[in-house]
């Protein structure tokens, strides 16, 4: 087992270093063919906001060279309805579930985190996406306000191009692990409309590698999850080699579930020893 929250009393133990990234399988209810929760060590839900969001109208998807942009606009049924619909499923799963909490009004994330207390036995942790343009004190505040209200492990997802800049602040503020992270946003025109979103797909991987290398030199005392553009066992092993304790996929789950399943089968042989216990 890998512990993604070694300094947290609860810990966050995962049996495989492969994580289904935010939205890869919706709220754990949308599995592409041939994939099951057992393929993953951890499942992160789509981001949830305090109130429901319709997200943005079409178009939401644009293809770019070697990847795509997906702008859902934060489409989600809202905190209460997600819990009402899915807690039963999460309880049944063998794979631990981390709930991703999107921003919104100040206090929203803390409010949601506090309400997760009732289902602390079902939830393995909380993911906090750190927005692209925050400064250090804003990043710190996002984590600290949630840290204050919950003992659950916190995984902070950092923007890749600024991960090195933000990492230590996030750990100090109480993040148990860092997801590295969110690819940089870009834009593309499709039909007459524009889609603007973080880049997804293989195109994101070079940014992931750079951020991992930067963090490796910082010797942070927190496990790192590599995310962004991972497509193959080679990609995943390179991330583990660069100090990541686990690897997150999403685009691959959507585009090629069979390849994701193969990756899930093969990566089990490469559990990083330093983090197992």
């Amino acid at each position, binding site marked *: 087992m890998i512990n993604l929250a070694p300094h947290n009393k609860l810990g966050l133990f995962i049996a495989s270093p492969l994580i289904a990234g935010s939205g890869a399988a919706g709220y754990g209810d949308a*599995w592409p063919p041939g994939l099951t929760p057992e393929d993953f060590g951890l499942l992160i839900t789509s981001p949830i906001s305090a109130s429901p969001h319709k997200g943005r109208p079409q178009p939401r998807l644009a293809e770019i060279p070697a990847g795509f942009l997906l702008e859902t606009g934060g489409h989600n049924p809202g905190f209460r309805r997600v819990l009402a619909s899915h807690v039963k499923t999460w309880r049944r799963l063998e794979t631990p579930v981390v709930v991703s909490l999107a921003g919104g009004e100040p206090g929203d994330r803390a409010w949601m985190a506090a309400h997760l207390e009732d289902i602390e036995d079902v939830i393995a942790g909380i993911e906090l996406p750190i927005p692209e343009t925050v400064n250090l004190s804003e990043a710190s505040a996002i984590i600290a306000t949630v840290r204050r209200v919950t003992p659950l492990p916190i995984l902070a997802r950092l923007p890749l191009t600024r991960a090195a800049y933000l990492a230590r602040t996030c750990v100090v503020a109480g993040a148990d692990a860092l997801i590295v992270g969110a690819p940089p946003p870009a834009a593309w025109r499709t039909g007459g409309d524009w889609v603007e979103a973080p880049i997804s797909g293989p195109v994101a991987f070079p940014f992931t590698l750079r951020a991992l290398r930067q963090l490796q030199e910082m010797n942070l005392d927190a496990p790192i999850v590599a995310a962004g553009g991972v497509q193959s066992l080679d990609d995943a092993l390179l991330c583990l080699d660069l100090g990541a304790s686990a690897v997150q996929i999403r685009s691959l789950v959507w585009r090629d579930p069979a390849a994701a399943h193969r990756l899930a089968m093969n990566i089990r042989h490469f559990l990083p020893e330093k983090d197992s216990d």
Partner: protein
Amino acid sequence: MIQTGAEIEARETSGAVQILHLRAPELATRLSPGQAVLIQTGWGYDPYLRRTFYPIAIQEAGFSIRLPLDGDRGRAWLRLARLGARLDCLGPVGRGFALPPHARRILCLGQGDAAWTLLPLVRQAASQGYAVTLATETATRRQSIPAAMLPISVEYHIATTDGSAGRKGDLRALLPELLPWADAVIAAADMAFYRQLGRAIEEMRVLLPKGYAQALYQMDFLCGAGACQACAVDIAGGRRRVCLRGPVFDLVDILR
């Protein structure tokens, strides 16, 4: 939905249009008219997204897709792929057309390239003994479905924008003549036509009941599995994922 290989068995070329016949027994047995198949194109990572196809024929051991000439590099790759090559397919995506059990006379209405997606349904309905009328609208004769591709029992009406075949004009003009006959309608067209169709049905039958007309909401999918949210549109009273609820909807749901 499954992920499976499909072998290119044959290629038909008609002008700039290609039709590929693919062998994929496992997928074919699951596939209904109106459902989509997502095919990976290219080697490597560009283009990354699968291309969405609505098969124009479904047989026991395979299905066929149509490739009009366009600027897309994914479809260009398919146009050049060799016979015998295996394509990686995800499908079937979503819910297809359902032949209404209590109807006997089915009117199929197709517009432009979307008309071709009706072909499997037309053949299925004809073989099951329904009385089928197909009416299509295309820009010119070249785009329209050759009559020879239809079962002999099907009544076929053509409208072309340039008048090069059938009636000059659009599908709407055919409705007053055809609608009264039909006790079920199946359509593959754009939203503007669906609205016209809804109005025409209401005029003729006072109200548009659920179960009377089905319509294809044609779009491209990413995951096809309800996970990515790329396909959410305002339909059926909410913002719904077309890959789960569609791509075939009751016309009532499309219009409200």
